[in-house]
């Protein structure tokens, strides 16, 4: 009798273990396949949109592939545009872990870039690497304080962070215009008011052998750091608890205010790096080109990646390819430059709609299906 009992309990445990394994597999594949499906539904909807306008969707996607990934040149073009998207998406994904929807990353990008452009002149006497590190710290500090303030306002004043961060993005752009056209304008920049061009030794070059600047490596590194922070540290775990239920986190004695400050300012600092690399590696001086919409595309990247820093990497590359192909699409298909915006909007709606499908497909829930049988 005793041995039979033991056998039964043993086999039950076995079933239980495979159940857990199956359940995890189902959930993981749901979390990967549903966003991919939503992405394709978004592409399909945009294809229909083009079709009804009398343009060929197949031509469109073929051109995007060609301009985004077709040659090594187009790959390098895509990857150069990936860098700011990685940073901008982190600025959304890190606060999102705490349940905050911060969408004003554009402002932090602009301020990070302006800080670099304005201060570059005063440290040009220092050796390149030290000056760049100092400037990078300053850019991260300014942008981090900017988005960190959004977090503080949320925590201590209950100000809605979505509205506040977007308002602050408009204020940041106005500040940039003031600085670039007023006190820090380079008299030689006639058509496009800019700060003085930064010294040659302060410019950030390309990764050896590639036509892609170092911002890409920095962006990938920051994604990895963020992933470790969120998934493998107690700080990230505390943030997840606070994001799930702020009251429960407070009852547990978690420092919710400090967590919010930490994650929002870190996100802002990353977005500041995006602006810094745009100035130091691409434009060569701070001007209105800084506000080119990377902050807004970054929101979509973060949502498509479901706020996971590792998933941000492939999504950012994909969306960067669309941005990279914008010029070719305008020339070849006679479509306006807002075409990519429409596509992004449709994909965004599609990914948000897919949220209501979680738990609807029984194939992802093999265990509960069996138990119902």
């Amino acid at each position: 009798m005793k041995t039979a009992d033991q056998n039964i309990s043993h086999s039950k445990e076995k079933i239980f273990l495979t159940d857990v394994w199956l359940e995890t597999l189902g959930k993981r594949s749901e979390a990967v396949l549903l966003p991919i499906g939503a992405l394709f539904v978004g592409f399909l909807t945009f294809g229909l949109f083009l079709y009804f306008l009398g343009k060929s969707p197949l031509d469109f996607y073929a051109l995007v592939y060609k301009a985004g990934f077709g040659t090594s040149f187009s790959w390098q073009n895509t990857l150069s545009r990936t860098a700011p998207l990685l940073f901008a998406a982190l600025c959304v994904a890190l606060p999102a872990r705490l349940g905050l929807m911060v969408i004003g990353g554009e402002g932090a990008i602009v301020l990070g870039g302006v800080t670099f452009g304005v201060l570059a002149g005063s440290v040009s006497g220092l050796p390149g690497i030290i000056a760049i590190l100092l400037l990078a710290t300053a850019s991260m500090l300014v942008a981090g304080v900017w988005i960190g303030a959004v977090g503080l306002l949320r925590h201590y004043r209950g100000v809605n962070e979505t509205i506040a961060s977007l308002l602050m993005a408009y204020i940041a752009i106005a500040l940039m215009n003031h600085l670039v056209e007023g006190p820090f304008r380079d008299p030689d920049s006639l058509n496009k008011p800019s700060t003085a061009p930064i010294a040659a030794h302060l410019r950030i070059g390309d990764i050896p052998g590639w036509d892609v600047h170092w911002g890409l490596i920095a962006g990938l590194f920051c994604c990895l750091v963020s992933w470790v922070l969120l998934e493998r540290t107690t700080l990230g775990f505390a943030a997840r608890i606070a994001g799930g239920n702020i009251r429960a986190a407070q009852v547990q004695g978690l420092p919710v205010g400090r967590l919010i400050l930490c994650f929002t300012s870190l996100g802002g600092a990353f977005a500041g790096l995006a602006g810094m690399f745009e100035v130091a590696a691409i434009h060569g001086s701070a001007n209105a080109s800084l506000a080119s919409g990377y902050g807004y595309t970054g929101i979509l990247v973060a949502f498509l990646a479901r706020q996971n820093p590792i998933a941000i990497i492939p999504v950012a590359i994909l969306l960067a390819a669309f941005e990279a192909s914008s010029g070719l699409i305008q020339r070849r298909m006679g479509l306006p430059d807002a075409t990519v915006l429409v596509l992004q909007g449709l994909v965004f709606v599609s990914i948000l709609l897919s949220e209501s499908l979680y738990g609807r497909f029984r194939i992802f829930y093999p265990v509960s299906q069996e138990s119902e049988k």
Partner: protein
Amino acid sequence: MTETDLGLWAIPIAILGGAIRVSTPFMFVSLGEVLTERSGRFNLGLEGTLIFGAMTGYAAAYETGSPLIGIMAAAFTGGLFGLFHGIVCSLPRVNDIAIGIALMLLGMGLAFFFGKPYIQPVAPDLPSIEFGWWSVIPQVKAALRVNVLFIIGIFAAIGLWWMFFATRIGLLIRVVGDSTNAARAMGLRPALIRAVATAIGGAFAGIGGAYLSLFYPGSWNEGISSGQGLMAVALVIFARWNPIACVWAAILFGGAGALGPALQSVGLSDGYYLFYAAPYVLTLCVLIFTSSPTRAMTGAPGELSITK
């Protein structure tokens, strides 16, 4: 009297005139948002609706030659955006703020996409009424040239206030906004009422957009709105979900928006971009002083996601 005789008096007159001109889109968007939020939804996408309304209003007025048809087209497309938001948000686990962000980006994208051919041509303007006929000073005359939409907006605010607090429909909307469960118990259909309220709210925002492109500034381009829709949404919190208060708040914000151009008109152009940021700073300050971390905001609909 000539223009220079006014001296510094020109600034308050220009701000007053500017406040009336600039406030109309704020007023329409915030009235639409009051209706939506009173039903318990939060539509952050009105910035996109505003811009798309500006484009369709301008395009329709240009194609037909009638600004009235332009306004109707803008209201119709705005209503479609609102209806989409309203229906989509009644699906489970769909976040209304996130959908708002998505529709803001989609609305801008579609407006820029279809609006490209209308950047050059000139569409007919909306009619306005000269309230400054008694004055001989040109600045006062210009300041008191009031557009009909401003007056319609004030009547709409009074109408909405009357609807919310004196009619059965208004009561139903407020019930749905305060408690989904209570509304269900009464046999109401919250999702339906919210979808209709959001659609009408979107139509209001569309009309606000048509005002931008058909009267002031009076042309269609891609920079026509820079956050007016967003500020109007924030203004609703400041106005405590009261349509009459929305009118005053809109005029205040319009005055802030008119500060930069008014100072420029008397020759003060230093720091123009900083004055240009005044409405954003004002909105942020208003949010900071009217929000509270501990208690729910007075007058807020109970089901509203931003105040819960």
